[in-house]
């Protein structure tokens, strides 16, 4: 376990070193919304990433979204953010609260790795208490296993 802790510290240092110099160009904004607005973030960047059943690792499709989020957030630095973690209804209440926290944290760590300061990011879990989508099929469940980046 001690080895793992040491690795985490090394990794965190590596993240900071790697990301401090990597400013990228912002994604071109659509014409229908004001660039830098909440609507801009939701429509042109994408505010959410999805997770596999019972898992909390960011999937490749989610990484692309989070890369775009990081770029946008670095351009518009006035927003603190809260990452909301949620789960589908196919788990128990308490475990899902913890799983939602783990998902929100996975998003947070990814954004930190992309250079967003940790102090800008809060997390909150809603477990299965506040589903995004109504429905009780795999389609609905897949969209309720989600991490949502909310601009404050």
């Amino acid at each position: 376990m001690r080895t793992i802790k040491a690795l985490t510290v090394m990794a965190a240092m590596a993240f900071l070193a790697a990301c401090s110099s990597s400013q990228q160009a912002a994604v071109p904004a659509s014409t229908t919304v004001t660039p830098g607005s909440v609507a801009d973030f939701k429509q042109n960047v994408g505010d959410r990433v999805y997770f596999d059943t019972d898992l909390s690792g960011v999937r490749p499709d989610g990484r692309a979204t989070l890369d775009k989020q990081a770029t946008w957030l670095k351009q518009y630095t006035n927003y603190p953010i809260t990452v909301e973690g949620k789960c589908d209804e196919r788990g128990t209440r308490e475990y899902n609260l913890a799983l939602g926290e783990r998902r929100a944290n996975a998003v947070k760590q990814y954004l930190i790795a992309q250079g967003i300061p940790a102090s800008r990011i809060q997390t909150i879990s809603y477990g299965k208490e506040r589903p995004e989508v109504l429905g009780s099929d795999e389609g609905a469940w897949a969209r309720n296993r989600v991490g949502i980046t909310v601009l404050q």
Partner: protein
Amino acid sequence: MAGFDLQLGIDMKILFSTLLFLALALPSAASAQGSAYVDDRLNQLQQSVTTLTGQVEQLQYQNQQLQQQMEKMRTDYDFRIDQLEKGGKGGPRPAGPAAAGPSAPPPAQQAASTGSADDLYHTAFKMFQDGDYAGAERDFRAFVQRYPKHVLAPNAQYWLGESYYARRDYQNAMTAFAEGYKVYKASAKGPDNLLKLGMTLAVLGRKSDACSVFSRFTQDYPRATDLQKRRIDQERQRNNCG
């Protein structure tokens, strides 16, 4: 048990070599390929630690089950040897598939049962050990008729089947094992009855019946010992069950 220890050892070695690799590779990898790579590797590492934790738990559990099974068998052998020494004859053990079965005469429960029932059972069992299968058959049958609720009744029913099986009277053996499986399904002898019922059907040439009997094993006895599970697997292979 040695096999399980070995398995555990191998798993731990994989874990440590993974850790070692990461410790050496991480710093250079991080600067060369970026933080996403490190992130990935850490997640993979976390995942493999979790998987290994689950495997170790499963193996420890199986190991413990196996130890309990071995302890049971040891008690059983002690009992048999004790019986032989008391009898002074040390007669031949029943030969053939019957002796190879995972079945065992009951150990500790006898204290609670009545004298006459105990006597009848042990006389029958002694006869079986001595190769007097007809005598054993008679007394085991008398036992299950007279004491169907006795703690030893499932065992007597099973050994009744064995006393036919040993004489290659497979038709009667089949009936006895089927009866044992049906009536005493939840007893400790349940899995043994199912195994021997399948084996008897196979000897009678009813392979598909045998296979369907074997296929019920996992469902009926999810907590069967590994030895019993292995015996079922062997028999399924032997009979080319799908």
